């Protein structure tokens, strides 16, 4: 108990410790220090995992269908399955997983319980009802007797039209997440009233910068859905401008990927060093990184629209430049996080120039999963640079390269990090010891191998021009020439990789279900939840970094610079013109 952290947790006291029967002094687990917050975080995680299970099954169906390995659904239903996969994993699994993780992180680092039970219940219900509506309308596409469908994929580009309840559900999910953010800011205000001069604890700082970015960016999709798509799908307005609505979507569509990733960054910065046996290398750089994400995540959305007509090249160029500067925080993270792991290995006695790598605790899934996720993210970072590369992007835009890329980022950096950290966090949130630990220990490696197979083949397939988002990438008039490898070999790798990923997902869910069903409450856990002080602590970082109002103001200014004129151009000729009537599918 050498490093207890005065600044890190606000209210840590002796009452948090108990003497156990074997005579050791142990800290109470999170579930007994903050029962209410633990319950909220648990609910969020269970919903996230349920969505993950269904989404993973849909993913398996797609991998086998696309590769023509096994086609159990008609190809016209493929798009319903694809919509479900995207919405359940990229919107529901992420948003609920993030809510659970942030609820824990903010409460833990501030040491303050959430202030309003009514608010907490409000956002939980809002998000849950939104999820049910969106998922219900999507599944309706598979059954004739459900009079609703939403085969519009998770980007829901107008003029393809979904049932109004789909849009309403999506809006509720986002509004609910705003409520969650409010919950965390109120916690911070409560903490601040007792700690007028203290630095913001690191995890809480990260939670708040992420949520500020989220407020700023999700406003775009909220406007798209509430002011355009809902009235349009209800028939209140006859047409919408497809370019304007997709621009609003992508205004939100790039920051949302950072909304998925930043929770992984929170884990990499604050928990991974501890799991490796060490301490975070640098608190100041961690804060700088999150501030850069708040500033630069939003004014880059046009890099998803490099191939869109109707947008001048200059705006695309600005977005490209911003995007490349967004590399900076990720490259800084790479160094800080790897250095923290090296510090951990060396504190545990590892020697050698690179030999310390093998002395890291690879046998523990909470470490191995998070570390493997980080490695995959380094690879995904490269393909992201190509995506961002403006005219280089033209070769691979909307090819299967793109899902190859984001299965490394949201599909591994976020998903595997969340799974791995669940092995460490769920015991603390439930007071139950993790079950099926053997299965848990190999699960991250199964996921890793599956993703290596699937993703490398998808990237190479993209170079050959094979499109994404299609049930049958086999054509009569089109042949694909592989730059590296062969198309047939890629197909096999995608099918095997997708199957392994499904197996990995089921192993994870079995561990979670086993822990939930077989674990005993009030147990003596195998994990320790304290987080040591960074080597270079908060006192080293300039106070201005904690000035969230300043950074928010600059972020808004950058958004106005990047989006003001292009949006004005689009609405100047009529906000609904040139317009399209709905095309229900």
């Amino acid at each position: 108990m050498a490093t207890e952290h005065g600044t890190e947790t606000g209210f840590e006291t002796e009452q948090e410790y108990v003497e156990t029967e074997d005579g050791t002094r142990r800290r109470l687990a999170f579930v007994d220090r903050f029962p209410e917050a633990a319950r909220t975080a648990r609910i969020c995680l269970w919903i996230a995992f349920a969505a993950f299970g269904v989404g993973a099954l849909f993913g398996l169906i797609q991998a086998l269908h696309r590769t023509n390995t096994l086609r159990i659904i008609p190809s016209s239903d493929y798009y319903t399955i694809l919509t479900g996969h995207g919405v359940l994993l990229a919107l529901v699994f992420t948003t609920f997983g993030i809510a659970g993780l942030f609820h824990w992180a903010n409460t833990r680092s501030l040491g303050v319980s959430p202030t309003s039970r009514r608010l907490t219940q409000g956002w939980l219900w809002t998000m849950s009802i939104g999820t049910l509506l969106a998922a219900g309308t999507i599944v309706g596409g598979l059954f004739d007797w459900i009079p609703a469908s939403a085969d519009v994929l998770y980007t829901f580009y107008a003029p393809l039209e979904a049932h109004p309840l789909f849009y309403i559900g999506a809006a509720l999910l986002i509004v609910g997440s705003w409520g969650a953010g409010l919950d965390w800011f109120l916690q911070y205000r409560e903490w601040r009233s007792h700690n007028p001069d203290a630095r913001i604890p690191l995890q809480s700082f990260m939670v708040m910068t992420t949520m500020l970015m989220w407020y700023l960016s999700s406003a775009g999709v909220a406007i798209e859905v509430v002011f355009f798509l809902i009235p349009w799908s209800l028939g209140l307005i006859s047409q919408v401008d497809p370019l304007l609505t997709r621009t609003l979507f992508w205004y939100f569509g790039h920051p949302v990927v950072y909304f998925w990733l930043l929770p992984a960054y929170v884990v990499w910065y604050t928990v991974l060093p501890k799991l490796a046996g060490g301490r975070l290398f640098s608190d100041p750089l961690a804060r700088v990184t999150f501030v850069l994400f708040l500033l630069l995540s939003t004014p880059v959305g046009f890099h998803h629209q490099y191939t869109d007509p109707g947008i001048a090249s200059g705006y695309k160029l600005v977005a490209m430049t911003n995007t490349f500067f967004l590399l900076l925080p990720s490259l800084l993270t790479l160094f800080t996080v790897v250095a923290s792991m090296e510090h951990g290995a060396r504190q545990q006695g590892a020697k050698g120039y690179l030999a310390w790598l093998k002395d890291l605790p690879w046998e523990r899934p909470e470490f191995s999963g998070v570390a493997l996720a980080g490695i995959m993210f380094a690879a995904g970072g490269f393909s992201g640079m190509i995506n961002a590369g403006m005219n280089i992007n033209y070769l691979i835009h909307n090819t299967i390269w793109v899902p190859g890329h984001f299965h490394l980022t949201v599909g591994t950096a976020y998903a595997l990090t969340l799974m791995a950290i669940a092995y460490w966090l769920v015991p603390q949130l439930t007071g139950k010891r993790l079950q099926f630990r053997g299965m848990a220990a190999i699960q991250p490696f199964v996921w890793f191998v599956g993703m290596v197979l699937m993703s490398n083949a998808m990237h190479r397939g993209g170079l050959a021009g094979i499109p994404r988002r299609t049930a049958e990438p086999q054509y009569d008039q089109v042949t694909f020439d592989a730059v590296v490898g062969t198309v047939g070999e890629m197909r096999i790798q995608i099918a095997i990789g997708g199957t392994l990923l499904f197996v990995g997902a089921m192993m994870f869910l079995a561990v979670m279900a086993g822990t939930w069903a077989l674990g005993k409450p009030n147990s003596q856990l195998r994990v320790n939840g304290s987080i040591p002080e960074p080597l270079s602590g908060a006192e080293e970082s300039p106070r201005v970094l904690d000035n969230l109002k300043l950074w928010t103001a600059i972020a808004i200014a950058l958004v106005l610079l990047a989006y003001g004129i292009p949006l004005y151009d689009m609405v100047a000729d009529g906000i609904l013109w040139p317009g399209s009537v709905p095309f229900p599918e």
Partner: protein
Amino acid sequence: MHVHRFERLWFGVSLVLIVAFIGTIIYGAVGPGIAMVDDSGGTVEPSVIADGNYEQTNNFREPGVYDTEDGVEVYVIARQYFFQPGTTEPIRVPAGEPISFHVTSPDVTHGFNLAGTNVNTMVIPGQVAEFSVTFEETGEHGIVCHEYCGSGHHTMEGQVVVVEQSEFEGGEN
């Protein structure tokens, strides 16, 4: 603010890398002239295209290949689930000269990609995607619709056939 010297160094190297990336991209646009689709194609009312009233627009013509004084112009409509021309009849263009494509959609969002090349654009209702391509060699290129456009999306494909100048017969201008 205390930052380890290795981190300062990495910070500098990262910035150099970022600037170098931006530099090579801009060189690609200026040197080899890899340009982007932009707003030069103008806008059209999707219903005008759907009804075939091309004479009401000043930036779109009846779909087809035209040999004009300004070079070869190709007007393509991407619609559920075919390219017109392109699907039932290939787009025939001559090799060795810039071909100007104009692509739009009367219904939903589509894509237009010559598989394996960087000839790639979104086709958005209301917008005309305009871009030039020079085919140096004769041969065939498959056209793929790469944006989900409805339950028959996977059947949407077409072909560009590049022929010798002497074999090329464009529609009258």
